[in-house]
């Protein structure tokens, strides 16, 4: 096993002219082939259109309808991903739900305590309510829930959020906020800022986004009481460094909203769409009314319920990427209930519970209940199922979190030889 050569090309163009000649030849050949075939077809199609007065083709009505595409082409490429969001906020149809669901950064559930909590993480009390994306552009504001359905369509004091701001409400200025709508005081609590006044914050760390959120939101007047051109109040939430006192403040501090658990954000994490371990949610009975999932009637079922996705080989998986396998569904059930690949199915976890080997799920005792609610866009994540399971059996307590912050200082222990167990 000799040392491995690591030479890289030095002061050289990456492509050889011979390779270029080959590729140009192939290109020319492909073009000529296309021309030859096109010619054959053109002949045919001119004959066809003379013979059969086929109507001018009309694309089939598709599920998604684009109402308008405002000045899309004029914008620079840098805004393309933001444009997607703005255009999509005008989309309709079932597909859009899935699309939207993918745009939010979704915290994983905290199933173990991350390292360096005190140094690298923020904590804040999550307001109870509906998680949504608020998009302001072209003089209007739309809020979309996690499943893509529209919550409100309203004027707001956000930049470009209402039709009064002549001039300033240009196509360039728009905002995308990650919010929770709190029913009781009819307030949008802004938990993250994705774009502000045309400026994208996707690539910025949470540290910067929170700083920006706090300074800009206040400035805009969006935190003012509701008025004719500003239908709902917006508010920031108090964010703390996750040290002893910060965690304590978030956990016990008084806030104007009902709490639903604590959210932990890694300070260095960018705004990442989909499930991410760099944002975590944790709950206990003291800081949330909704620790244990309830069923459709708002009651806590005697057995934990989970929603899993059916794959084509009968496998049942979570929404994670890559998905985590929970088991296989009996062929009989699939046939009897007329299930298809991609269906979201509800299960109860039986007395067998979940069993783990070396920290990995090995077996789950699943009892089939039926298809899930249609509004669900996707299955539960692994961390959610596990958190719910732990809550029912051996919950992660606030004391555990505080203890891990305390012990972080004396962690300089020397590890010894370890047997690999994978």
């Amino acid at each position: 096993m000799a040392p491995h050569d690591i030479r890289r090309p030095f002061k050289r163009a990456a492509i050889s002219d011979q390779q270029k000649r080959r590729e140009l030849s192939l290109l020319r050949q492909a073009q000529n082939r296309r021309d030859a075939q096109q010619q054959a077809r053109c002949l045919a199609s001119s004959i066809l259109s003379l013979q059969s007065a086929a109507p001018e083709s009309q694309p089939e009505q598709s599920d998604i309808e684009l109402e308008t595409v405002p000045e899309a082409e004029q914008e620079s490429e840098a805004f393309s991903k933001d444009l997607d969001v703005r255009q999509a906020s005008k989309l309709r149809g079932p597909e859009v739900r899935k699309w939207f669901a993918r745009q939010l950064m979704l915290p994983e559930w905290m199933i173990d305590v991350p390292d360096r909590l005190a140094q690298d993480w923020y904590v804040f009390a999550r307001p109870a309510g509906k998680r949504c994306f608020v998009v302001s552009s072209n003089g209007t504001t739309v809020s979309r829930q996690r499943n893509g359905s529209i919550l409100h369509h309203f004027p707001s004091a956000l930049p470009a959020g209402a039709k009064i701001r002549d001039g300033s409400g240009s196509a360039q200025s728009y905002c995308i906020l990650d919010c929770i709508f709190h029913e009781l005081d009819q307030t949008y609590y802004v938990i993250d800022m994705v774009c502000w006044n045309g400026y994208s914050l996707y690539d910025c760390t949470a540290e910067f986004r929170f700083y920006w959120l706090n300074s800009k939101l206040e400035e805009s007047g969006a935190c003012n009481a509701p008025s004719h051109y500003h239908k709902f109040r917006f508010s920031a939430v108090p964010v703390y460094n996750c040290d002893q006192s910060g965690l304590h403040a978030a956990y016990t501090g008084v806030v104007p909203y009902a709490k639903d658990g604590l959210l932990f954000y890694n300070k260095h994490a960018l705004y990442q769409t989909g499930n991410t371990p760099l944002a975590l949610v944790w709950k206990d009975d003291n800081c949330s009314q909704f620790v244990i999932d309830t069923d459709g009637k708002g009651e806590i079922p005697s057995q934990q319920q989970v929603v899993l996705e059916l794959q084509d080989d009968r496998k049942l998986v979570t929404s994670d990427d890559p998905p985590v396998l929970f088991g296989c569904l009996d062929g009989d059930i699939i046939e009897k209930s007329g299930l298809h690949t991609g269906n979201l199915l509800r299960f109860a976890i039986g007395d067998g519970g979940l069993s783990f080997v070396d920290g990995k799920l090995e077996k789950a005792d699943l009892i089939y209940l039926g298809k899930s609610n249609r509004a669900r866009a996707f299955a539960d994540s692994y961390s959610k199922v596990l958190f719910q399971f732990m809550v029912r059996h051996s919950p992660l307590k606030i004391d555990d979190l505080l203890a891990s912050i305390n012990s972080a200082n004396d962690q300089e222990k020397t590890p010894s030889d370890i047997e690999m167990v994978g």
Partner: protein
Amino acid sequence: MAMEVTQVLLNAQSIDGAVRKNAEDSLKQFQEQNLPVFLVSLSGELANEEKPVETRKLAGLVLKNALDAKEQHRKFELVQRWLSLDGNAKSQIKACLLKTLTSPVSDARSTASQVIAKVAGIELPHKQWPELIGSLLSNVHQLPAQAKQATLETLGYLCEEVSPDVIDQDQVNKILTAVVQGMSSSEGNTDVRLAATRALYNALGFAQANFSNDMERDYIMRVVCEATLFPEVRIRQAAFECLVSISSTYYEKLAPYIQDIFNITAKAVREDEEPVALQAIEFWSSICDEEIDILEEYGGDFTGDSDIPCFYFIKQALPALVPMLLETLLKQEEDQDQDEGAWNIAMAGGTCLGLVARTVGDDIVPLVVPFIEENISKQDWRQREAATYAFGSILEGPSPEKLIPLVNVALTFMLSALTKDPNSHVKDTTAWTLGRIFEFLRGSVVDSPIISQANCQQIITVLLQSMKDTPNVAEKACGALYFLAQGYEEMGPSSPLTPFFQEIVQSLLTVTHREDAGESRLRTAAYETLNEVVRCSTDETAPLVLQLVPVIMMELHNTLEGQKLSSDEREKQSELQGLLCGCLQVIIQKLGASEPTKYVFMQYADQIMGLFLRVFACRSATVHEEAMLAIGALAYATGADFAKYMPEFYRYLEMGLQNFEEYQVCAVTVGVVGDISRALEEKIVPYCDGIMTQLLKNLSSNQLHRSVKPPIFSCFGDIALAVGEYFEKYLMWAMSALQSAAELSTHIAGDDELVEYTNSLRNGILEAYSGIFQGFKNSPKTQLLIPYAPHILQFLDGIYMEKDMDDVVMKTAIGVLGDLADTLGSHAGSMIQQSVSSKDFLNECLSSEDLMIKESAEWAKLAISRAISV
């Protein structure tokens, strides 16, 4: 039952050629007469402590060669042969091999390690030799150091040989435990630690599960990092190699360690011996590769599901990383630019700096500019060169807005340095930097403030003058001119280079005639630049390109004036012929693209074709390919008249199609068959039997590189379209080949590369169907195609349902649907109506944003409505 092989093996290493030949023949004969006995004897020789070390080693090598070969098909045969070998013999051989691992003779041990890995590579995937890993590891702790080293080496080779999915996690755990413990500080023996560290490098690919376990990952990382500080330099180097490998395999797991790794690498880069420092730099280059890939995949579009997020390690390390890399730039070696094989810390550091610039863009600029300003006019050439290299390195990545002001300041300085700097190094790097300026900032040539009417003259004068400098500087000057010319591609009727065209061409030709043009790739660079200048020329200079034709023809003619050549001279001759054929190809393509120039050019066609045929007669693979490519271009330009060259050319065409070894040649020839089909149309009929036979033979061969198969299918379509119903003769064979390939390519299971390949295969198959349908249209024999229609529709439905076709396949596929409907008409009406393709797929294509797909879909819709309505 064993034979005596010692003497034969000794003879096989004799300095006397005749003795050697004799011995080799005997070995071959033994092998053919009784393979099991022969192999057992070899393993016995290897294991026998009383035998001389040379014969033991050679016995092991012969054994190894009986298990593995470079060529795929040969390798496959050897694997089958071993699997079917007598079980007793195999057990004996394996026992000997394992025993040899404890031999006191180091050469014997290490040979045995390699052979064991080869056997494992064959048997483990077939679930054979399950006890191997257990028996290697059973007593690894009690073994004497030498045997322990051999065991670890064996594990390393084994991991290199087999793929991770054939070893159970349980066994992986055991291997990793042994390897990592062998590396750790508790192991006292240096050789053992080195073997363990190198073994880990190969075993890393198996450690997926272990890297997902925080504790185990921490442990592995700690041991690797510790090994980077070990007193033995080879261990430090191997440990850094492991880090490099980890950086690409486990990028997403690195966050907790990156700060420590930075400290380790920074220390190694500044203080350690070069082989170690090079790996330390490579770590960061590799991180750049990862982040560039991730960021490219996002493409600024966060809706895409990327598995791995970007952790922006480079961005975070930037303030410390850039100064460290800039320091390395000052450690150049004298004459590194003349030495093709050179690779040193300055080169590695500069390369890494370039990657960093691509990773972070604008952010690097303020960190590098002070270094450039500080060093660019210093007395010491090293400082001037380093400053220039730093500048050149950051030209790709940052935005033009950020770079253009800098370039505007620097350009005059650079032009002056290229002519006046006393140091050849500095000039080399300066010319390279100019090339990078033209390459990366030319997007805005027309409106950019970089090149103006005023300085264009000066730039060209300086570059042409530098082409007279030493070969390495001249080569870089050619490169700069290449990119300068490229900036004026498709400029319209007039190019700023027009006034200089004659002078540029003349200078480049002069370069090709330099005595020392063979050094530093200079001649090749000059021809490549000439090609680019021709490609990017405008109508204004067409007469000058025409004048170039007889000049290059004369050059090619001169290479053919036969005197007896040594093999070295023959190689040079064939290389030069390749360059000249390449140049002629570019010229033909350029002049053939417009009617007036094509007409004038045609006066040379006979002579050029004559030269190409003579080049073929010299028979060398690369020339063959270049001449073949040029002939394709010539056929396209000549059209039906090309028929007159066919009688003489055909045998070379056939030869090209038979060239499996150099599959590029084969692929290029297949493409030329397409060119000729379109040029000759029905006049190609007399050659079709031979061509189709050879193409079908190629398809059924497992020796032909798979990349040639898709173009062969497309070529069926070209031929069918050219010859029409005459294709009936081959229809059954072609359809059956297409059908079995179609079945294989409906479902894809595999990595991106395989997906890409399968899509190219699908495209080839579909192009064949299109050509066949179109060729048979309006002939009385269309009904011959009806029996194939159900399968073709099924194939279309199949790939539609798979949802993994790319845009090209989509366009071709929907076109086939149209062609089928068009050619078969009402015969296929009900069949078409039943297919998914005619509804969902067609609708999807009709609403596609890709105009080509939409156009094909419109055509298909029209053809279908016609087929159904009748």
